[in-house]
């Protein structure tokens, strides 16, 4: 049963899919949420804090979309403001200080698009995360669990390992946005999704992600246990790597080179 790319997009957006908080509550033994960016405010679209995985402390950051209409409104539909990215960076720098690895769960249609977001430097906030994450001295694993919408997703996915759920999508622009630019018709999103190559298999083919996570038993105990085991194993291996930051640089350094002329 193979879905078309646009069906994948719809699956990735399904409000019944597990959200960031579901992962936090089920993969880890404990979680203490920490709030605020210490600059302006606390963004409910980004949840962050310290969790325990098989007895080890981990800093966990998740973009949270919410399930119900009310939750979704509260979480700004998972579109972070600059404060969300700054909170994430603050917690990741803290993780670095105390030698904790970082795990990010990414699920956003994109960074918040609004007047206040621009006034408070949405572009600068994302840019600073990219800059700082590129040399963060602790392991970072990012998992795209639903939508990976452009720079707003990448700001939490400059990592040593990036994994996608089988039905997650990762794209530079939404299929609707692409269709309205190309054909001035957002209804051609289905066709745009086809061309954008936004599925997990595509991302793996381009060398943008390392692994695709099976959705067998999605949202059930088995599923979370399996993910917890994979995370534990991989974080352990990364923690022992003396050239973590150098390899992270090379990971991104080669992206796109294969397909251009030089």
């Amino acid at each position: 049963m193979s879905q078309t790319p646009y069906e994948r997009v719809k699956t990735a957006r399904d409000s019944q899919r597990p959200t960031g908080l579901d992962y936090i509550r089920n993969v880890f033994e404990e979680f203490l949420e920490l709030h605020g960016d210490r600059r302006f405010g606390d963004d409910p679209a980004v949840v962050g804090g310290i969790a325990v995985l098989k007895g080890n402390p981990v800093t966990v950051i998740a973009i949270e979309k919410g399930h119900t209409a009310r939750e979704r409104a509260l979480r700004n539909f998972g579109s972070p403001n600059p404060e969300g990215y700054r909170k994430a960076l603050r917690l990741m720098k803290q993780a670095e200080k105390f030698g904790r690895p970082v795990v990010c769960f990414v699920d956003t249609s994109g960074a918040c698009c609004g007047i206040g977001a621009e006034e408070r430097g949405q572009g600068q906030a994302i840019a600073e995360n990219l800059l700082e994450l590129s040399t963060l001295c602790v392991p970072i694993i990012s998992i795209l669990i639903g939508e990976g919408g452009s720079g707003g997703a990448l700001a939490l996915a400059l990592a040593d390992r990036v994994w996608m759920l089988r039905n997650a999508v990762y794209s530079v622009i939404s299929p609707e946005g692409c269709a309205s630019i190309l054909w001035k018709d957002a209804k051609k999103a289905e066709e745009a999704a086809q061309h954008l190559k936004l599925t997990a298999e595509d991302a793996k083919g381009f060398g943008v992600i390392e692994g695709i996570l099976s959705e067998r038993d999605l949202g059930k105990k088995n599923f979370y246990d399996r993910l917890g085991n994979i995370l534990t194993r991989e974080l352990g291996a990364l923690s022992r790597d003396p050239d973590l930051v150098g390899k992270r640089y090379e990971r991104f350094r080669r992206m796109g080179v294969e397909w251009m002329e030089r």
Partner: protein
Amino acid sequence: MALINFLKPKNELEEGGRSMAPVQQDDGEPQQKCPNCHKEIPLSLLLGRDLVCPCGYHFRMRARQRIGRITDKESFRELFSRMRPGNPLAFPGYEEKLEVMRGASREEESVICGTACIEGQECCLFVMEAHFMMGSMGSAAGEKITSLFEYAVEHRLPVIGYTVSGGARMQEGLLSLMQMAKTSAAVKRHSDAGLLYLAVLTDPTTGGVTASFAMEADLILAEPGAVIGFAGARVIEQTTKKALPKGFQTAEFVLEHGFVDCIVERKDQREVLGKLLKLHEGGWNNESDAL
């Protein structure tokens, strides 16, 4: 001129198209209508003023023209000019579009990189080209900029970058998005090496370029009236259904909100860049405290 003079007061410019579309007048002199003062300006006058209207409005400028204006005579040496984009997604119409863009802009990509001297000081320079797919960043543009920062680390040189971009290049999908991470990592290495990176944001600097190397410089200058932002104004208006504040996303607005260091008019840029390069040559000279 003292540096303080470049910190100009707010200049409320109207938004509008900036492309040059001269109109032939009855007397045969081509004219260009200024979207700010609405006057018809003779093209010859504009060309003599670096495409700045007497009212202060800055029209868009070609990358090579800028390089000629800000660098010392014959000092520019281009690097990585053979890097060209491919079509990794087999995106329909992309190759044809690239061909048209190459013909129209006489460039191979949306950014030109090299080394040059500015007021006698050596630096690495990248200048983005609005006439090539609105300066969008694909894999080749990202590779060129990354390679330039690496070259600058190797040769211990400062980097000056002129940005103009609509953002990441849609036709290269996820790989364009990854250029934001790749260029940022290169900027960080350059920064950690203790070297200066100075960005000049010109109209328009938006999307993935704003959210990466445009906002990562030690010093961020902007051209008057340039649109600088992350999301497009039209998209924000449609999403929020709210009227945008006056002067939203202009260089002046971004300065007021604390995201650029200063606004520098085109005619002053060479001098300011020269001065700033000079000021970053070394730290405090211990001999200057001798009484």
